[in-house]
């Protein structure tokens, strides 16, 4: 259990009260969260050494997704597309600049290859497993298993998120690892999905980063 010394991030939350969420997140052992759809510019008191990043969830018709991604590509926001039908996934993974494709349905090898070319990470929404029960949970677990299989084959980056609406939906990193073991993720993969992968996304968002392999030092 010594892998838990690293920094942890939750990259997809949409809280109604961001400062409370940050406080609880810090207590749970996170180093930062990404907030989607909440104006963090307002003066709210966030705890020290806890970072808040801004995320943008792109919701558009499949034909418009490419345009929307290009619009936000050069900002420091974290771009998230909530996956769904094949057309949305296809448009999302084929556009350079997207960071996370969250919970795609009907994921296949063509999409996985495109995602690997454009270095898009695959997100797993563990909030679904917490909130659903019975048949629906079985369906989501099955989807996650398929996604994980493809992600392993094409060496995609994995991201674990809680998609928390309130402080009661958040779970501590160790709990997230335990939940992700339900669909066959190993402990190391899960820890990397909450620490190494988010840090890699942040590195690519930084101003010093030009291209994979080229950086201003």
């Amino acid at each position, binding site marked *: 259990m010594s892998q838990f010394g690293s920094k942890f991030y939750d990259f997809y939350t949409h809280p109604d009260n961001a400062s409370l969420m940050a406080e*609880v997140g810090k207590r*749970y052992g996170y180093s930062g969260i990404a907030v989607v759809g909440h104006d963090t510019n307002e003066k709210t008191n966030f705890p020290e050494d806890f970072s808040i990043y801004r995320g943008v969830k792109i919701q558009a018709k499949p034909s418009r997704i490419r345009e929307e991604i290009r619009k936000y590509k050069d900002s420091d926001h974290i771009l998230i597309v909530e996956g769904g039908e094949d057309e949305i996934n296809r448009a999302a993974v084929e556009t350079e600049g997207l960071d996370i494709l969250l919970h795609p349905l009907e994921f296949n090898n063509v999409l996985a290859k495109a995602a690997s070319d454009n270095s898009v990470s695959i997100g797993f929404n563990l909030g679904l*497993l*917490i*909130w659903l*029960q*019975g048949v629906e*949970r079985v369906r989501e677990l099955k989807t996650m298993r398929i996604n994980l299989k493809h992600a392993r084959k094409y060496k995609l980056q994995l991201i674990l998120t809680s998609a928390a609406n*309130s*402080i*009661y*939906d*958040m*779970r*501590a990193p*160790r*709990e*997230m*690892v*335990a*939940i992700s*073991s*339900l669909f066959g993720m190993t402990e190391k993969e899960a820890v990397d999905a909450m620490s190494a992968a988010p840090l890699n996304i942040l590195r690519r968002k930084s101003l010093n980063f030009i291209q994979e392999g080229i950086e201003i030092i």
Partner: protein
Amino acid sequence: MKTIPTLREKKRYLAFEVMSEKIINRQELVREILNSMISIYGDKGASEINPSLMSFDGKYGILRCEREKRVETRAGMACINNIHGNRVSILVLGISGTIKGATEKFIQQTLVNKPELRKK
């Protein structure tokens, strides 16, 4: 009759903290923990985990489980989202081999480090 040591069940104690909108009582928590485990692992899996609540005071508690099933127990606890209409989230503070260890090392430590939590 006393069981011989090699045949005794190997157990672990999880110290946990419940964060809820309203104070929940022991019976509701026990029922919800069992429901959650059975929902995820089925009757067979839940019997292997063998969870039992040792003590609970409305906020902190100790749950006993099988030694090899710590991760499963954690997952079962984490999937609880609602008890009797109140939204809850359960945080496992730590795992220990004895009740005394779990109490001293995790629950009392939390109260010492965070004095403001005592008021809540």
